[in-house]
């Protein structure tokens, strides 16, 4: 399924006309629209639809043209000029990424002139690029480095800066900026303004003073950055990187008095193989468990446990809201309810739609719930003083680093989560430990949270939270097996990569109220025949569309529940995932996640035995009860847009 994030010639796009894609051909005669046009590239003839760029046409026939500012997810810039080619009959070279073919052309991609120009352009970038490859987070995964190698750069033709010109911005918990390494490709700008529509970064200044900056050059922590890290994933160099706590994590591991626990989220396991040269789409869940133990983590838990827990808490909250609204006719209930598990989305809402904070589920994200449970329930169970427990979370996400540092996230008296690691950072740790991840034997998660469900796993993909919630809600309300409603319990309508998806599900009948919810509702009669309307949005640009629709009283205001993910594709496209990213890569990761789901014996959150046990032994006043409210729920901060 094609991802709906790319905004080509879309009228709602914020991108300047010059930067939009050129897939819509402009031809003299309407009859020609959609017609094919033939190009000759390096002697090969190929027919392509009108408006195809030279770059796309070349790729189709296997001709490689190097690029730098071009990115599949983004609108076109044509600024780095690395991709220039020679077109017969034209005086100047043309950027192949930005040149739409509307008439037959003869193109040469590697003439002397072209090669010399590319080499010069790379030399020029290096003449401004301060930093050494061997001390860079992106060593071996840098497009500038790769280009230098490809074009045989063996000395700095136009010099090399001897000292940094910009101070680094290390203020953010999530995203660090080192503009000395910036090559001004503006991929971050296009990501932030156009793909995500957050609008933190822009080009500032002019001429040789041009730089990428925040509003008034303020530190990232003081502006409206939502920490999604999408800019990091699209930065070709090491100018943007995540705030990396691996040294602290190693120190905790090395400290014999610390009990170091890592929980691993579903999306990293579907992607970490990419850091070890595997094709996208290989899940390494159980190999990773072994590797983590070899690294020295004392316990390896599965975030899916707390994902299931989240479903119970968040689902209960939804039921309570619906009950109040439908049965008690309480007008003050905020509906639709919004998911709260994506910290990028949550901060986006706090900045741009603070008036909708009551709509956000008060349930913490799985990461934070797990931390709270570990430092209370697990500490008691294992007899370890919570102050000696260090909780590490492996997440596909840079915003999770900010989330675990939110001051309110310490209801156990300790920080729920001490460190958030990204997939990339864990890959580095594993390599540092001399472990060859893909070759590791498989091993399971540790008890007492070991057993996970498929519902937890699919949290990693857009639509996953919704699907998990629906599986549970349908069963507990109707008493039917989901399998009898949706083949194989796959609720496919909520899946896919369309930017905003709306699904309506009719409640055909009502069943008995399960014991766990008896204290909350008497029966389900009031839901009989009702139609649940839900929506799913991923990427904050789509979240914005949904919010604007709700604000204007549009169709989506009628929804009951909306899943929002800050990143395109959901967690599997998170800002902490391996670089590069593209629609194809994200689709491959999604396939890996959904096939994991299939492999689980238990695929519904409310059937997770560890979760049921937790309610039985610890959260004895049940979902949304007193203790769970204290430990598993949180509140939000209306931040607003104003930048002080």
């Amino acid at each position, binding site marked *: 399924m094609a991802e709906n994030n790319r905004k080509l010639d879309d009228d709602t796009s914020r991108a*300047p*006309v*010059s930067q939009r894609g*050129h897939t819509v051909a*402009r031809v*003299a005669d309407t009859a020609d629209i959609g017609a094919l046009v033939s190009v000759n590239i390096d002697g090969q003839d190929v027919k392509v639809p009108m408006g195809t760029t030279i770059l796309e046409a070349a790729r189709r026939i296997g001709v490689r043209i190097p690029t730098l500012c071009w990115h599949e997810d983004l609108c*076109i810039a*044509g*600024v*780095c*000029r*690395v991709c*220039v080619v020679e077109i017969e009959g034209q005086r*100047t*070279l043309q*950027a192949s990424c*930005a*040149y*739409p073919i*509307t008439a037959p052309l003869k193109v040469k991609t590697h003439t002397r*002139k072209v090669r*010399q*120009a590319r080499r*010069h*352009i790379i030399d*020029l*970038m290096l*003449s*401004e690029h301060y930093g050494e490859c061997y001390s860079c987070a992106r060593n071996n995964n840098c497009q500038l480095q790769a280009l230098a190698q490809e074009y045989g750069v063996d000395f700095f*033709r*136009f*010099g090399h800066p001897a000292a940094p010109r910009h101070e680094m911005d290390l203020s953010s918990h999530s995203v660090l900026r080192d503009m000395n390494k910036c*090559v*001004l490709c503006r991929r971050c700008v296009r990501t932030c303004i156009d793909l995500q529509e957050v609008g933190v970064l822009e*080009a500032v*200044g*002019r*001429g*040789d*003073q*041009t730089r990428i900056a925040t509003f008034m050059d303020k530190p990232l922590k003081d502006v409206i950055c939502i920490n999604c890290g999408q800019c990091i994933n699209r930065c070709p160099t090491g100018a943007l990187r995540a705030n990396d706590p691996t040294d602290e994590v190693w120190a905790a591991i090395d400290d014999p008095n610390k009990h170091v626990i890592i929980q691993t989220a579903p999306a990293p396991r579907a992607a970490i193989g990419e850091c070890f040269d595997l094709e996208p789409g290989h899940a390494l869940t159980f190999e990773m468990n072994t590797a983590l133990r070899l690294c020295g983590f004392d316990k390896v838990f599965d975030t899916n446990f707390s994902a299931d827990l989240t479903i119970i808490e968040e689902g209960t909250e939804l039921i309570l809201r619906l009950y109040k609204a439908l049965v008690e006719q309480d007008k003050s209930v905020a509906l639709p309810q919004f998911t709260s598990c994506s910290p990028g989305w949550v901060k986006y809402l706090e900045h741009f739609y603070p008036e909708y904070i009551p709509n956000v589920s008060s349930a913490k994200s799985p990461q934070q719930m797990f931390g709270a449970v570990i430092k209370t329930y697990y500490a008691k169970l294992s007899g370890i003083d919570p102050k000696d427990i260090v909780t590490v979370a492996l997440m596909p996400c840079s915003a999770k680093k900010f989330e675990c540092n939110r001051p309110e996230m310490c209801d156990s008296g300790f920080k729920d989560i001490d460190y958030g690691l990204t997939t990339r950072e864990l890959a580095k740790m594993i390599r540092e430990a001399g472990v060859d991840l893909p070759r590791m034997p498989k091993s399971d998660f540790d008890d007492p949270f070991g057993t996970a469900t498929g519902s937890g796993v699919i949290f990693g993909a857009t639509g996953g939270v919704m699907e998990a919630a629906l599986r549970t809600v349908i069963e507990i309300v109707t008493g039917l097996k989901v399998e009898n409603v949706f083949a194989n319990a796959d609720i496919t309508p909520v899946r896919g990569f369309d930017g905003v998806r709306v699904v309506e599900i009719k409640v055909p009948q009502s069943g008995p109220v399960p014991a766990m919810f008896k204290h909350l509702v008497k029966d389900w009669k009031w839901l009989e025949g009702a139609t649940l309307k839900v929506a799913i949005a991923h990427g904050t640009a789509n979240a914005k569309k949904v919010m604007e629709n709700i604000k204007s009283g549009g169709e989506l205001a009628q929804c009951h529940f909306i899943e929002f993910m800050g990143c395109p594709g959901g967690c599997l496209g998170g800002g902490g995932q391996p670089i590069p990213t593209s629609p194809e890569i994200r689709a491959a990761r999604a396939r890996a996640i959904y096939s994991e789901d299939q492999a689980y014996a238990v695929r519904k959150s409310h059937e997770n035995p560890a979760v049921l046990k937790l309610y039985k032994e610890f959260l004895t006043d049940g979902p949304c009860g007193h203790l769970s409210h204290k430990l598993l729920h949180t509140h939000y901060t209306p931040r607003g847009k104003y930048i002080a």
Partner: protein
Amino acid sequence: MNEPIVNLATFAAMSPDAGLRAALQKSRADIIGEISASGIKGRGGAGFPVGVKWNLCAATRGTQKYVVCNADEGEPGTFKDRAILRAHANLVFEGMTIGAFAVGAREGILYLRAEYTYLRPELEAVLAKRRAAKFLGENVCGKQGFNFDIRIQLGAGAYVCGEETALIESLEGHRGEPRNRPPFPVDTGFLGRPTVVNNVETLAWVACILQKGGAWFKTTGTDKSTGLKILSISGDCARPGVYEFPFGVTVAKLLETVGAPDAKAVQIGGASGHCLPSSEFGRAIAYEDAATGGSIIVFGQQRDMLEVAANFLEFFVEESCGQCTPCRIGNARLREGVELLSEGRCSMRYLQELCALGETMQAASKCGLGQSSPNAFLSIVKHFKDEIMGRVSVASH
């Protein structure tokens, strides 16, 4: 103090709005035919045939089109558009109105550079008069269904906004960063709509052509460069000013006219143009020979050509929009190279490296600014080797 020299005799001899009245009697195709017959090419620098441009725009569908007059005149050494706007604004607006009628536009915008803000009140006054006289507004000159008005938008201080797509970006409220082309403004211009952008002088000539005919226009100039050209001449000469010359006039003749018998070199086309040494003063001002948008700068014997190159490169380092690599960084490296040269610390090898870089900038930059910014440097290196290489140190790079 002597009055500045402004010779715009042909414009002065035109009868007001005769061209517009003539145009409104014709069909659109005939107007464009007349323009094409005159052979007029753009006076702003790029030299694109006006007839072709208008034809492309007229052929696009869509009801909302724009005519933009490019009065961002920022090229060092050019001031003829200022002189034209001062003395013959009516002619320029007349040209815009003709253009609007020919391509089917309803709105015209004069993009006036911020440095010329002082012209705005007088231009607004001219527009007001034209509105009152029904040369603008609904049913212009009684032509049913032809509605057209002109507004003035001020630039905000950026040379690159003279580049037509940067100008459009600026009109749209963005940074003045040139767009990728294609698509060209004639089909995707201001607000994504078909837009004709023409220079001030071009539009004034258009009005003349409609009054006097394409054939009249062709009687002067060369085969490939028809008509007269308004030149701004400054630098080391006795009589700097604005002059009218037929295309094909030699540089020597210009120098004679402005009183520069002993010039060392002449910069044709401003900072983005080429520098001619005295041995090439026989060359002609024309699109096919020494092309210029109107800037002629004379250098006397006492001038240090490296300082000239440094001044121009400084200009480009600052005025580059900073968007594409070859121009943003290339100009900075060239300027440093000139510094090395003047300190006598540039090896021959590095100088060659810089010249090759200049060629890359010409070929690979995104817009005309970067494509032409190395011109002056390259021609100075080429023609004044003795002068600048006297300072080249022998130490290898």
